[in-house]
Structure formats: structure tokens, C-alpha cells
């Protein structure tokens, strides 16, 4: 029963809103963005209809995820085992390559992080460019004010797609590593989270969905997606730019990067893109059903 309570998320280091990450985000905002922090905690943002939907959505979708979505998803172990057996079947068993434990863990951590980030980029981009997928992803982009819980304002079908992506990427990468290097594969972790995910989460992942315009500067933003760059992604003008999660190299290589610094002076106007301007009611039912039935308002 306790699993169904999304309250758990605050104490799970693998969750975006783990209390440590939130505290760090608050800390950064408090030190550098006092004015923006005031806005973030203003009634106008905190009690906006969009924000109220985020709070409700967070609770309801958390229950849905545990009750319906996760049981539907095939496990990473099953994918890993299936791929390991197929690799052995088609390419033959090979005596494992001996490398030092440090190199093995470090390379697995980096490869898993990079491939996972790349796959997130492409799935995210597809959510924008394939009309049927965009219908579902619009739920996330319909947010008109941002807060860390907006991260969870994602249609259940999108949850399933991202869950499958995770299972496939982790399963295939792990299987390839087992095939070549045998047992002993694991990512370098800190407090139970992938060290790289942990580091990025500590330096402001929660500010991505906020009104705190933290930029990393022109040079760094070519390599890493800053909170400001993701905020631009949520604006009505730059909706179809900056699809990356942690790394900006995918956006740069595939021509969708917009730097945050240059645009930071502009007012961030969040919501659906201008072309699709429509009255959003921010209802829970609308968020769930609008992608299926056009007549129901988002």
C-alpha cells in the first residue's frame, strides 16, 4: 500500500524530487536567484490552475504507475537475459575479456549514461515530431507555470514509452557488457543512484521545471543542458528545441540546440506553442483523455 504513495519519491535517490536534490535546487536559487525564487513561491505561480493540476497529477499518476504501468513493462532482467542468450546463440560464446574492475565500472557507467541520454533525446524528439505522439506529449507542454512536479505531468502512455526505452537501453547495454566481460557489471553509484545522474540532479535538475533561469554559460551549454535551456523548451516559441536531458551534444549534433544565455533576458512564456494556442482548462480528466478524444479540452 505504501508503494502507492508518491510521498516516497522524496526519499528515493532515484527520483527527480529526492529531498537532497530539491534542497540543492532551493539552495542554488536562494543564493543566486532571490528575485526569481520569490516569483516561484508567489501565489500567482504556486496556486496557478496549471500548478494545481501538477500536484493532483503527481499523486494520481504515481498510483497509476505502480498499479498499471510498471506491471505492464517488461523487466530489465528479462531483456538482459534474452539479449545475452541471443548473443551467445548468434555470435557464439566468447571467453570473457579481462579488464580491470575500475575500467569496467567506469566505462559501463559512462556508456549507459550516454546511450541512455541519447535514447531519451530521440524519444523526446519523436514525441514532438510524430503527430500522434505529440498529442500525448502536449499534456506535459500544456503547463503554463513550472515547478519540480511538472516533471511528472506526463501522460501514462508516455510513461510507458519512456519506461520501455529505459528497459531496452539498459537491458541491451548490460547484456553486451556481460557477453564481453562476464559477471561484475555495475554502474558507479552514489547513495544508490548512478553517479552521473546524481551529479546532474544535484546541480539543478529540479530547476529545469521552475522559474529560476539558471544558465551554465555559452561554453558549457554546448555540452550540458542547463535548466534555462529546458525552460526555453517549455516556452511557446522554442517548444521544438533543446530536447536533451543532461547532455547538449545531441541537440548540437542534430541541429536542435538553443543556448540559454542569449535568450535569458526574454520573458519566459510557458505553454503550448503559439500555433496551437488553445484554451487549456488544466483538468485531470482532460489531461488523460484529450489525446484520445479531441472534443475533451486539455
Amino acid at each position: 500500500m505504501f508503494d502507492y504513495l508518491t510521498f516516497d519519491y522524496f526519499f528515493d535517490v532515484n527520483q527527480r524530487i529526492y529531498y537532497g536534490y530539491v534542497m540543492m535546487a532551493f539552495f542554488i536559487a536562494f543564493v543566486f536567484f532571490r528575485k526569481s525564487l520569490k516569483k516561484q513561491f508567489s501565489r500567482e505561480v504556486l496556486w496557478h490552475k496549471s500548478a494545481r493540476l501538477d500536484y493532483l497529477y503527481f499523486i494520481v499518476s504515481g498510483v497509476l504507475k505502480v498499479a498499471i504501468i510498471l506491471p505492464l513493462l517488461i523487466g530489465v532482467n528479462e531483456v538482459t537475459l534474452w539479449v545475452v542468450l541471443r548473443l551467445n546463440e548468434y555470435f557464439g560464446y566468447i571467453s570473457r575479456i579481462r579488464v580491470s574492475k575500475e575500467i569496467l565500472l567506469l566505462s559501463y557507467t559512462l556508456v549507459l549514461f550516454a546511450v541512455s541520454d541519447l535514447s531519451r533525446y530521440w524519444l523526446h524528439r519523436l514525441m514532438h515530431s510524430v503527430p500522434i505522439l505529440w498529442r500525448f506529449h502536449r499534456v506535459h507542454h500544456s503547463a503554463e507555470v513550472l515547478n519540480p512536479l511538472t516533471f511528472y505531468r506526463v501522460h501514462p502512455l508516455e510513461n510507458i514509452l519512456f519506461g520501455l526505452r529505459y528497459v531496452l537501453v539498459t537491458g541491451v547495454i548490460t547484456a553486451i557488457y556481460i557477453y564481453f566481460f562476464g559477471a561484475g557489471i555495475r554502474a558507479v553509484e552514489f547513495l544508490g543512484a548512478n553517479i552521473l545522474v546524481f551529479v546532474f540532479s544535484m546541480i539543478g535538475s529540479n530547476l529545469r521545471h521552475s522559474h529560476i533561469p539558471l544558465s551554465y554559460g555559452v561554453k558549457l551549454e554546448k555540452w550540458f543542458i542547463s535548466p534555462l535551456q529546458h525552460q526555453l523548451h517549455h516556452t511557446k516559441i522554442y517548444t521544438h528545441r533543446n530536447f536533451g536531458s543532461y547532455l547538449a551534444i545531441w541537440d548540437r549534433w542534430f541541429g536542435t540546440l538553443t543556448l540559454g544565455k542569449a535568450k535569458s533576458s526574454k520573458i519566459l512564456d510557458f505553454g503550448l506553442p503559439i500555433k496551437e494556442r488553445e484554451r487549456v482548462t488544466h483538468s485531470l480528466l482532460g489531461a488523460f483523455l484529450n489525446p484520445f478524444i479531441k472534443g475533451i479540452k486539455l
Partner: protein
Amino acid sequence: MIQKLAKSTLLGVVLFFGGCGGDNAYDGTNLVGGNPSSVQGDVLASIQKNILLNNATTLVENLNEVQSTLNSFEQNLSSAEVQSLQSDFVNIIENWKKVEAIYVASEYDSALRTMPINMDFFNKGKNFDVATNIDYVLGLNGSLQTAQVKKTTKTVTGIEYLLFANQASIEEMKALINQDSQKRLEIMKLAVANVYDNALLIQAFYKEDVKFISNVEDTLNILVNTLVQSTFDLRELRIGEAAGFIFKTKDDPKAERLEYFRSKKSLEAIKAILLAHQEVMGQQSFENLASFASSNGADAVVKKIQANLSNALAIVGEFSTPLQNGITPASVDTKIKRLYDEITDLQKNYFESLINALELTPDIIEADGD
């Protein structure tokens, strides 16, 4: 600005982790499921003592006995003595296979890394023909040129050829051993002494080593890797290749490819390997990998592995004739296919245990968009 950010972040990190309790201390994952904190070093000590050292010691004792027997011969050998030597050889291969199946010494001592290759030419020294080498030396006039059989006399395969030739009968073998001033017997003494010396090194390592029990996570990884590799060797090289089940020899069964074709003892070797796996993964009177894994949440897969081993040993028990009798160019005994399939399943379950231990649970953060 950047300096200020760095300082503030550092302070924040310190404050944040200063508040983290011991509950958050992460100490890695173990291999076969469960919580590494419950790992007891004595499980590994038990494996080292009851399996690794015990098997190596038995091999050393075997070889010592054979050495004594060989040195006791003062005149031509009788048929009974030849037969007795051949029985001793079965003991040697049974114990050697047990040592080889769970050979982990190579992971800890680089000097022992190539030991199995030195001691066993099967499928590892195909470019070198033991029989040709021995026959060549035996055919030379004059006293025995031991330097020319240096490589051969390090191997169990060499001992096999010296004792069985090409499936010679007892009488034929007796004649071969007794001819030419018992040159064959001299080479045999040399080979047994060499293998004995190597077995002593392995025994000494397992007796004195402390690395095996010092790093639980690494040792568990090594053990599982060794079991997986051994299962592969058993399935592909010792059964599949001869029976024509693998890609390389598909539909081309040839009994000559079996490991102990000359002595017709391939089945005994297979049984010894399975018994070695059972020592590690079966229910035993001492603590082993199975008892450890079961008590750490991997009971289901352990039971599947135990069933595989029992089934495979039961199939081995069904054979009333040497394995090679079941392999002809025209057909392969269905029992061999069943054995092959059971070992395939065993390998799959080893992989499953290995993967389960990685604790790759569905990660909800990855199931959300951005």
C-alpha cells in the same frame, strides 16, 4: 560568479551530506542476489577449504599413488598391472576435471594463469598433436630423449595416450609398454611427475591463499564467471562439437572429437565436471555458493540450477556404454542431445543468477518524460 557558485555548491553538498545518516551508506551489490552485508567470509572460506583445496589435495594424492606404483615396477608389466594403471588414470581425470571446472587460481596468481592449458591439451593445443610427438620419440633409436617430449609430458592428455594408445586392448597395451626397454613407461613417469608438480602448485595456492576470501564481491564474480565458462566448455567443446550440435560441426558428428576418445572416458570426465558444479551449487553438508545465494534471496534460481545438475547427472547415469558409442556419422544417441539441452539450460540459469544479482529494477525516473 562561477567561483561563487562553486563555493556555494560545495557548502551545500557538505551541509546536505552532513545530514545523511549511515542508512544511506552504499556498499555495492553482490553477485548472486541480496544484501552484501549478510555475506559471511566463512562461506568463501568453506568453498576454498571444502571444494577448491579438497579437490586439489585429492588430485595430488592420486598422482602420488600413481607415481609410487610406476616406480615400483621392476620388470615387465602384467595385464593386471596395465589394467590397474588405466583405472588409476580414471581417478586422475575425474579429480583433474573437478579442479579444472572451478579453477579460480588463475584470477589471483599470474604464475598459475596458464596451468589448465599446460595440463590439458584438449581444444587448447590443437596445433600440437600429443600422439605424434610421443610416437616420434618412441621411434627414435637409443636412449630416451626427454627434451623432445617436454610439452607432451606436462599434460593429462599425454598420460592418456601413453596408457591407452589409440584404444588399444589390454594385451596390446601391455606389449607396447613392455617393448623398447619400457621407454613408454619412462615417459609416463615423467608425465605423471610433471602433472604432480603442477597439482602441488595448485594445492599450495589454495592452501595458502588469502585473496579468495578477502574481497567477497570480486570472488563471487569470479566464481560465477568460472561456472559459466566451465558450463560453456562442457556443452560446446565436450559434447556439442563431437555430436555435431554446434555451428562449426553442424550435422557432422565425429566421436573422435571427444575429450577422452582414446581411453573412452569422456563420460567420466563430464560426470566429474557436473559433480564439481554440484559441490558449488548443490546441497552440501558445508556452506557453498548455493547456501549463500539461497539465504540472500536467490533461492528460486538456485533451485533451478540444482535441478539442472541433478537431471544432467541422471542422464549421465543412463549410459551403459562409453559416450562415443552413441556418436556415429549417421546418428547421435538421443541421450546426448538431452544432456546437451540440460547443460544449455544450466548455462541459461547461471546467466539468470548473474543478471538477477545486478539488481536492475525498473527505474521510475526513467519512465518519466522531461
